[in-house]
């Protein structure tokens, strides 16, 4: 059963704008800002939902087996954006190429886990809970938040942005998670009376959902207050200037990442953000569909990094992509690919030690009749980000220890 934090019963005070702000938040926000240590290290998780095809994202263009396996959807070697003599990026990813050339992308090759599963939902569960045995019930980021990052229980330490449900990665006992689709809609609508009535309806709800309901409304109530509070009380005032030109053509991921930038810039307590782009389950017409999605990823991530840099926070943000699995080496009859196994992931940001890490898995020595073998356990990436980036203890989150990767610059 979820328990409420002490802060939620520690008393409330009213601010001049009529918004209830618990003192503990006001103090922590204020103190963090004054000491200029706020959100010094933020982790942004970008989930590519549906199973992104790694082979058409990072193309092993020097391997003749690649185009043999993919006569219709393979990307010719003269089209790829080469990263070295072996591999190159999908041509719709010039922004990622630029970031890679600037040394701000760690490309981790062949990421997976033993005995791969081919179900979306098992694959998701394994990545979300950092557990190939599927025994854990808490999401890895939720566990990290509740046990180490969020000792104040601030509602905005863990944010799911541009979405309406709590991602399983963030879902854990005692983890407070704000799920914010957009800031303008993240409020109690209908006037002052509703702003009083709505939270008052959810203080002592009986029944098996009582704590969960009350936690959701309390998190919303205090999150709304914190959002309003930072505008008026932070010294010096922290403002986010929308960089509409940076994001260029809008897509849902660009919108989510712009919201993420705004949250990081204006909210001192933000530590972990989750955004998602779906649609990568390209059983059919992968050439057009995946290219469109990767182009979104490329432009949105590039814009986000630029936006963060424009606000002087490039040193504070690292973004990691992941997907529940890669896809089958050999294309199917519908210009698509079926569910597969290992795939590359990107770790992006100025604090990142750029380069290619790990080996491109063999296209011929495969697992389960035609799927790529992993050579780096995904929990190695988690462990590195927890210890080297967030400066927390990975053992309590991951259970056991995994080899770390040199993907975060040492100061």
């Amino acid at each position, binding site marked *: *059963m*979820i*328990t*409420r934090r002490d802060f939620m*019963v520690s008393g409330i005070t009213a601010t001049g704008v009529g918004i209830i702000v618990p003192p503990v938040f006001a103090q922590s926000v204020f103190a963090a800002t004054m000491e200029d240590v706020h959100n010094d290290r933020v982790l942004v998780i970008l989930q590519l939902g549906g199973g992104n095809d790694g082979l058409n994202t990072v193309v092993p263009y020097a391997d003749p087996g690649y185009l043999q396996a993919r006569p219709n959807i393979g990307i010719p070697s003269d089209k790829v954006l080469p990263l070295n003599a072996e591999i190159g990026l999908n041509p719709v990813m010039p922004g990622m190429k630029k970031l890679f050339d600037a040394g701000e992308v760690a490309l981790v090759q062949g990421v997976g886990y033993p005995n791969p599963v*081919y*179900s*979306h*939902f098992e694959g998701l569960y394994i990545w979300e809970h950092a557990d190939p045995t599927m025994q854990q019930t808490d999401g890895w980021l939720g566990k990290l938040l509740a046990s180490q990052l969020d000792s104040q229980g601030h509602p905005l330490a863990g944010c*799911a942005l541009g*979405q*309406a*449900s*709590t991602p399983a990665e963030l879902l854990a006992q005692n983890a407070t*998670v*704000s*799920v914010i*689709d957009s800031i303008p*809609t*993240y*409020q*109690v*609508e*209908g*006037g002052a*009376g*509703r702003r009083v*009535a*709505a939270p*008052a*309806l*959810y203080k*002592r*709800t*009986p*029944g*098996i*959902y*009582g*704590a*969960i*309901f009350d*936690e*959701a*409304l309390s*998190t*919303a109530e205090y*999150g709304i207050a914190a959002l309003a509070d930072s505008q008026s009380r932070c010294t010096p005032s922290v403002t986010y200037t929308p960089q509409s030109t940076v994001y260029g053509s809008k897509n849902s991921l660009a919108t989510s990442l712009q919201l993420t930038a705004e949250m990081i810039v204006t909210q001192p307590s933000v530590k972990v953000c989750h955004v998602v782009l*779906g649609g990568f*389950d390209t*059983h*059919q017409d992968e050439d057009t569909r995946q290219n469109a999605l990767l182009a979104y990823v490329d432009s949105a991530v590039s814009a986000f990094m630029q936006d963060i840099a424009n606000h002087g926070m490039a040193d504070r943000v690292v973004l990691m992509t992941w997907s529940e699995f890669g896809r089958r080496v050999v*294309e*199917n*009859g*519908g210009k*698509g690919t*079926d*569910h597969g196994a290992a795939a590359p992931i990107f770790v992006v940001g100025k604090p990142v030690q750029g380069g290619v890490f790990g080996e491109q898995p063999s296209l011929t020595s495969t697992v389960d*009749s035609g799927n790529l073998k992993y050579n780096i356990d995904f929990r190695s990436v988690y462990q590195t980000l927890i210890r080297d980036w967030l400066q927390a203890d990975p053992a309590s989150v991951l259970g056991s220890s995994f080899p770390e990767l040199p993907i975060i610059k040492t100061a």
Partner: protein
Amino acid sequence: MGSANLRLSRRQVLGIAAGGVVGAVGFRYLTLQLPGGSQQVASAAGPAGAWSSPLSNATGLAAHLLRRATFGYTADQLETAASMPYPDLVDMVLNQAAEPLPPVADPTDYQAVVRAWYEHMATTPAQFPERMTLFWHGLLTSDYRKAARLPFVLQQNELYRSMGRGDFRTLINAVTYDPLMIRYLDLEESTAAAPNENYSRELMELFTLGVGNYTETDVREGARAFSGIRTVLVDAAGKRTQPPKAKGSSPAEYAQAVEQLLAQGAAFKGVLAKNQHDSGSKTLLGHTGNLDPAQALDIILAQPSCAPHIARLALEQFCAPNPSTALITSVATPFRAGNYDIKTLMRTIFTSEAFTSPGAYRSLVRGPAEYMVASMRALARPDLAAASMRSGAGMDQILYDMPTVAGWPSNQGWVSSGAWLARLNFAAAAIASERTFPDPVDAVKVQLDGVVGPDTATVFNASEGDGDRWYALLASPEFQLK
């Protein structure tokens, strides 16, 4: 109406423990004193922190059934329902004949279809068929995107309405040949030479058996059995004809051409294209033969895991949030023995002890569409269909646009800070445009069984007008539950 005044009884106030573990806050009796001196006392003391269950009285049990098997009810409907012996009431609900969706102006516009469906859910007396249409939509999922500008969303919606209370074998065979499904799970281009695994995998994992009850080889062999399914357009005489060309015509012209074809009796339907189908020998789940789709489905439905899988999903939506293996088995067994008769499945659920016992009371969370339609019905406001469509996204439920092929979350999966704000803001929007309201005190009795927690009672009592009282009711935790 005059001043409504709900007062907490003294016993209830005294029953509220200060602090303590959330979820066990310690009030046992949830009692409201209603105006005019009449006091409705909930029938039994629940365990500490539980809702006090009214399911031991006829009205309480009837309301419980109607909240789950339908999208809501009026005071008159509840009175009628409560006057019937419970088994007769269950049969009456199960035997409701579906009412067709009223004509949709543009059947190629999925939003128009969804809007019409919301209105229909809010207005039709045939509530159970609509609830089952939504149930199957959430289980045998498809999204609108690949329908392009063809009337496939409407057609699948009609399929689930007409076949959703028959037998599951007929339903899943029809779904396998449904044009929207053919597109959604990529059967359209699956060939003998290169079968596409998408439908085969999700059929076994999500629609019938559950993960762990088939192998990767079964996925690949199943894909061969389902190869070659294609959508064709046939005219009223059953002769194949060409769909109108989307290219070169305006959306309005195109929609008109499609409508005209449909009006003339033409229909899209799935067929097995023999020259694209892999007719060779396959081995699926231990059975070998030149399997076609119907034979593959028979093999899948003969698996012992099939009935329990569907029973579990139905129980989570209609009965209990985490059904035990024993409960699943007790529901799956007659379902399977009854040759997958869906009414048998639902009758077993609705008459089970797990459904009628006090612990079942408010043990499920209304999904967003259920919540919004229940609000529309409580307020008699079918015109909120458009608002429901807009608001669904913030609660993570857009009909025909689910987050994944596994459909939507259920129960506590619906709960997040943002989603709850969206629910409360829907209530505010629904109230904002209303000038005269049904009696809110009656609504507390009818919609909430008069079983109200201290917060709802406090906010309700502090409200100054009927709009505010209705807000307290629709935004309350009680109204989110079923």
